[in-house]
């Protein structure tokens, strides 16, 4: 697969900075989101949601609601009995609750009306009789066998969704060889994504008897499959279109009640149905970061080398599984990177509780253990009296190696990342010397570039791209990817333009439409640049080959003598000998329509451990960060002043977008470090489902961010690219925790680091030992 981009040829478009081709449409309001779409005779639907965390539904009386003028129709859970879910092996959720509710905010009834306000008022007229059940609201309660099973009707009723246990090397021998053993517990809180755009869907049954569904999703393909299955339709009867999407961060990977109920009601009522969640409902849809309780034990030799890691994690998953089975693996699998390790044991459990379901959020399942591991290294560095950056440098895995749990690593830019942030931040000069209330900290991390295995078993390609060029010169690229703001449209246009000698804005991209575009598995696991990018290069190269063949004939040279750039195909050795791109297309069309496709199937990377199907990736990205903080020791208020982040993304296809991703990751990390927590009050009720009370940083709380792109060449990546969308977030929170420790002497192992926690810890720290 390598060498596809003809090493030695200089990239013209790849590697530049500049705005996205779809950026202007987004900032001028031309980009159409689901809520911008309106169809004739369209009605609006709203949900009535459960006020109880766990209860039997005894009866539902819709009469008063249906009598309200303007109400058009309604549906209850029994009308879509089939269960849905992101992962085929554990589908446990229904569009609306059937017989039982399992969290506060679970949808119970859906009502359609001529306008949203009427639908909302009608929902409040529905009378539901509930019979409350004992609730399971914590990890300990979920582990208590005396409590009722939240999924009483599953094959093996239990509040443990999945238990994973893996053991590599000889952990006990590793600890026996250690000069220092560090053991600590950590608690990472749950948090939610807060995408700017809420979830929404618009469904219409067209005259040909088929369903057309627009939805704000990250995963058109998986959602398409599951919606069709649950509604009892052939997938070909459903056309799912992803319009412009206002971010996901993992929160729009699952199928949702919006899509199912809009589709079902549209059929039932014979009218188009739109459902847009309000902000409160987005907090109930959730699928956010799992709260994880962790225990970590590590052995070190005096020289800083790591002899063994023993790790346990328990994840509070909420009422449904979502991607929880996958989460239970991700919690452990990346602990073997980026540091050399021979002996590793981990055990994780993903539990059911009566709360909105957790799922994937940027850095899925890896954020929490990374926090524990990196803060652990800070502690070990202090005990070993080795600088924390040096301790990491001594342990970095070599390129082209295999970890003890079978991850095959290609390029590794870890050392360059650490050295870059240490140098630019002045870490060595500042550590321990910034004076009272000020501190600096470092952390590093590794992440995947696309899951090697799809969520349902198949051997087909993961990404398909089709390119159509015609004599007008118009280049149209079709891809099943889902640009959710991260820039995959621009990535595809860039790669296509590079290979055809055009500018990105000359490439139109049609994407995320299950009828028009070839399958792509979706925007998750940081896979799009790597996988769809490769598919795009393959398709573009096929078009290029046909253009070159036609041009070569005309110019009377060999194909290999040609080059494409700036809208021309020319002879490399004699650039004045050239024909324009449009003329070349005309000539190429003599052989028939100029339509070509490419696909990406991950290489069959064997893994010694058959059980390790979650975690392996064709490549891995690396990040290092340094954070500088200031703490007001009288109030406990902490401010993250500056972050230096260096990320090995392979080749940066567009530097502006990579920098944007680094800044976005740091921003989200600062939110999780200081403010964010999907917290519940008694009764399983969210503490504050609003973005006034769920605090995400404003510009004022966002630190000065110094983004450093470290480029390695990943053999299998498109132009050597890896990923930048998730990995950079992993090391933000532990870097801040280490900086807080440097500033104050306190170790906080349970983010968010609120002023209350900091002040309490400072008071304990200052108290004379008794």
């Amino acid at each position, binding site marked *: 697969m390598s060498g596809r981009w003809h090493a030695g040829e200089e990239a013209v478009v790849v590697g530049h900075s500049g705005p996205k081709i779809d950026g202007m449409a987004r900032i001028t309001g031309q980009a159409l989101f689901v*809520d911008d779409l309106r169809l004739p005779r369209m009605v609006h639907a709203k949900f009535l*949601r459960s*006020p*109880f965390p766990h209860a039997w539904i005894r009866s539902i009386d819709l009469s008063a609601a249906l009598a309200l003028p303007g109400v058009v129709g309604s549906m209850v859970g029994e009308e879509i009995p089939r269960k849905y879910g992101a992962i085929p092996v554990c589908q446990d959720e229904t569009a609306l609750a059937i017989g039982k509710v399992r969290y*506060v*905010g679970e949808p119970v009834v859906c009502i359609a009306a001529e*306008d*949203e*306000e009427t639908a*909302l008022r009608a929902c409040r007229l529905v009378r539901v009789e509930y019979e409350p059940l004992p609730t399971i609201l914590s990890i300990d309660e979920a582990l208590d066998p005396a409590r009722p099973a939240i999924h009483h009707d599953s094959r093996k009723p239990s509040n443990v969704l999945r238990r994973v246990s893996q053991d590599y090397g000889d952990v006990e021998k590793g600890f026996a060889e250690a000069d220092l053993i560090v053991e600590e517990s950590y608690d990472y809180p749950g948090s939610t994504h807060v995408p700017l755009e809420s979830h929404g869907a618009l469904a219409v049954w067209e005259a040909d008897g088929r369903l057309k569904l627009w939805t704000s999703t990250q995963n058109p393909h998986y959602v398409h499959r599951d919606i069709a299955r649950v509604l009892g339709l052939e997938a070909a009867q459903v056309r799912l279109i992803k319009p412009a999407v206002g971010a996901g961060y993992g929160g729009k990977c699952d199928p949702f009640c919006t899509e199912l109920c809009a589709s079902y009601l549209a059929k039932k009522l014979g009218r188009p149905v739109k459902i*847009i969640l*309000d*902000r*409160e*409902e987005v907090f*109930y849809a959730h699928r956010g970061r799992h709260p994880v309780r962790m225990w970590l034990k590590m052995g070190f030799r005096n020289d800083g080398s790591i002899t063994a890691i023993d790790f346990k994690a328990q994840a509070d998953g909420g009422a449904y599984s979502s991607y929880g089975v996958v989460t239970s693996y991700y919690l452990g699998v990346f602990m073997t990177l980026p540091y050399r390790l021979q002996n590793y044991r981990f055990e994780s459990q993903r539990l059911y509780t009566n709360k909105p379901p957790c799922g994937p959020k940027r850095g899925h399942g890896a954020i929490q253990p990374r926090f524990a591991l990196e803060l652990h290294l800070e502690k070990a560095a202090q005990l070993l009296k080795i600088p924390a950056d040096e301790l990491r440098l001594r342990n970095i895995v070599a390129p082209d190696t295999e970890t003890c749990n079978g991850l095959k690593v290609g390029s590794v830019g870890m050392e360059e990342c650490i050295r870059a942030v240490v140098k630019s931040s002045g870490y060595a000069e500042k550590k321990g010397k910034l004076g009272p209330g000020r501190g600096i900290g470092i952390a590093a991390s590794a992440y995947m570039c696309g899951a090697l295995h799809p969520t349902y078993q198949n051997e087909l390609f993961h990404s398909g791209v089709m390119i159509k060029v015609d004599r007008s010169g118009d280049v149209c690229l079709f891809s099943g990817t889902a640009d959710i703001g991260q820039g995959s449209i621009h990535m595809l246009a860039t790669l296509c333009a590079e290979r055809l000698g055009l500018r990105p804005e000359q490439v139109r991209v049609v994407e995320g439409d299950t009828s028009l575009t070839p399958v792509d598995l979706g925007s998750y696991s940081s896979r799009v640049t790597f996988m769809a990018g490769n598919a795009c290069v393959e398709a573009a190269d096929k078009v290029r080959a046909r253009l070159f063949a036609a041009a070569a004939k005309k110019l009377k040279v060999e194909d290999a003598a040609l080059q494409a750039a700036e809208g021309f195909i020319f002879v490399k050795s004699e650039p004045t000998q050239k024909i324009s791109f449009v003329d070349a297309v005309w000539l190429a069309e003599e052989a028939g329509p100029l339509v070509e496709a490419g696909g990406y199937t991950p290489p069959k990377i064997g893994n010694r451990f058959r059980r390790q199907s979650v975690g392996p990736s064709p490549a891995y990205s690396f990040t290092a960060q340094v954070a500088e903080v200031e703490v007001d020791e*009288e*109030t*406990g208020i902490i401010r993250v002043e500056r972050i230096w982040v260096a990320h090995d993304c392979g080749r940066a296809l567009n530097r502006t977008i990579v920098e944007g991703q680094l800044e976005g990751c740091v921003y989200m990390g600062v939110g999780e470090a200081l*403010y964010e927590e999907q917290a519940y009050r008694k*009764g399983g*009720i*969210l*503490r*504050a*489902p*609003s973005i*006034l*009370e769920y*605090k995400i*940083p*404003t*510009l*004022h*709380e966002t630190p000065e961010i110094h983004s450093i792109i470290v480029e390695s060449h990943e053999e299998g990546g498109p132009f050597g690219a890896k990923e930048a969308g998730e990995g950079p977030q992993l090391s933000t929170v532990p870097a801040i925790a280490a900086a807080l420790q440097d500033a104050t002497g306190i170790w906080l192992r349970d983010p968010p680091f*609120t*002023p*209350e926690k900091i*002040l309490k810890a400072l008071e304990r720290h200052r108290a004379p030992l008794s």
Partner: protein
Amino acid sequence: MLPFPKFDYAAPTTLREAVSLLCTPGARILAGGTDLLPSLKHRLFEPSLLVSIRRLTELREWEMLPDGGLALGAGLTLQQLSGLPALALYPGLQEACRTVATPTLQGTATIGGNILLESRCLYYNQPVGWRDAIGGCLKCDGSVCHVAPKGKGCYAAHSADTVPTLWLLGAQVELVGPLGVRLVPISALYSGDGLRPMLLQPGEILTRLLLPPPGPPTVHRKLRTRAAIDYGLLLVAASRSQSGYRAVVSAVGPAPIEVRGESPEDLAEAAFRAVQPLGTHAPAPTWRKKVLRVEVRRAAESLKEG
């Protein structure tokens, strides 16, 4: 997007007409709307009629008074107000205006609206589904105060940023109602009852804010989680005269609380003794109480050099 409940709307052109419309049962005044409109969307109240003051141009006028004080129309936006050259003589008030929400909202929110801001609580200013799940509260659709379940009243917090400073300045408001015009000192405007925090008569409109001539400077401090958007966790205004220090503390109950002291430390201790923050805000009351002492002391200390 959250839809509005249905309501009628009127935008009278005379004060007399506005007062008469406001006497309609279920009517509410609409000024900048920055607090009212989200509250409607959250169904905190469902007025039958909104009376907009946007066409009452006299509410956007201001003048210097013969005694050197200022008369400020209640319809001036916080941005207009803080931008008045004369406001430089009232630095605490200028600062307070600039800490409200965000610059965008300061361009819409009015000074009158801020003075009459509805009291706020973690259990009240929430979306409707959430309030249904907790069974409502004393202030809306319920019978229990979740902040003080054994208490007698509603403790929703006075949260108007400009008020502590106006209180220290000795400002007055002019109220026009069906029975005529009256002047009320800011310090006498608040009832201390979270259910009906303002001592207004039915149909009354706040028309003008009257500031006495500039005196000793006041300072304003706002403690909040984020430096924009958020309402205050503590609002502290302080001033200093020959007789000592004064501070007005708010966001700790339905009405601001005034304390006095001889030194910054003394003032902070007086505030610490007089004020008991409650669970009306997300951070723990114990933390807010500790920080209250720090905030009051720092406010007073910043006056030392003046």
